[in-house]
């Protein structure tokens, strides 16, 4: 051992280890633990183990149920989305492309009549 600056004793581990070595040979026998203590402690360990396993099982079931609920909720939420409405049909424009022959002939005659009337008007002015 030695004294450090503060006056406190500083022990040298190797010296202490060497001093204690012979004493370690004086092995005191290990005592027997009473059987009742063994029984209680092993029983407590078994009970706690079962409790831990059950708790773990419940946690897994709850987590699975929560995941399932999220999935079902997501499916229901996105399933009912309405189809976007089609653009309004311009019936008049379509109608121009869907003429029957009679309608076409009638249009042509009217066009010719208007043209003749325009010519007569022009000649009358001259």
């Amino acid at each position, binding site marked *: *051992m030695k004294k450090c600056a503060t006056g*406190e*004793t*500083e*022990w*040298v*581990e190797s010296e*202490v*280890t060497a*001093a*204690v070595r012979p*004493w*370690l040979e*004086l*092995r*005191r*026998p*290990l*005592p*027997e*633990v*009473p059987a009742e*203590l*063994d029984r*209680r*402690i*092993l029983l*407590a*360990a*078994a009970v*706690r*183990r079962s409790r*831990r*396993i059950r708790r773990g099982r419940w946690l897994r079931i709850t987590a699975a149920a929560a995941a399932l609920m999220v999935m079902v909720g997501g499916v229901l939420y996105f399933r009912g989305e309405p189809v976007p409405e089609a653009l309004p049909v311009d019936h008049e424009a379509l109608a121009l492309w869907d003429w029957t022959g009679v309608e076409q002939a009638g249009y042509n005659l009217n066009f010719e009549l208007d043209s003749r009337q325009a010519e007569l008007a022009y000649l009358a002015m001259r």
Partner: protein
Amino acid sequence: MTTETERSDQALIVGYLGGDEGAFSVLYERYKRQLYRYVNDLLPGQRSEADEVFQRAWLKAIDSLPRYRDQGCFLAWLLRIARNVFLDRVRAERRRPQPERFDPEEEGASEPVAPSGSEPWRELDERELARVLDRVLAELPSEQREVFVLRQEELSFKEIARIQQCSINTVLGRMQYALKNLRRKLSAIDAGGLIK
């Protein structure tokens, strides 16, 4: 394939936490007697109190197993738990241990010591020596006794310092004074001395 008795402490703990029924009983059998001796050394002559501390220490260890990190010595971890249980019990009973003062004069340095080299206790047979050593240990101050018994459990001084929550230097000092006291007390062994 390793047998149950060959599995490491960490493997047994992992097995127990995973649901292996036999793993804990192997671990328990491995360390129960050392812990029992330690607890009885903390409470010499108080068998029922020692049993209670022993049981509580194991229950606390079982509850703490999920948090156990393999840092080399399961026994040191277990002994630390037992010590804390013992201290909790002491606080609960409102007994405050006196602070240790390592004054060499107070440790009986003035008492006559057998000449160096003479070890009369060596003449005792093993059983008698164990009985005498137990008795002499019980007379040591508690901190010195604890250092001695923990060293007998092959714990390093560093681990003992961690258990006692003090510096290594303090532990070394306690060990030296423990040896000094043991030598002094055992030197008084003679036909009419400690042997009854």
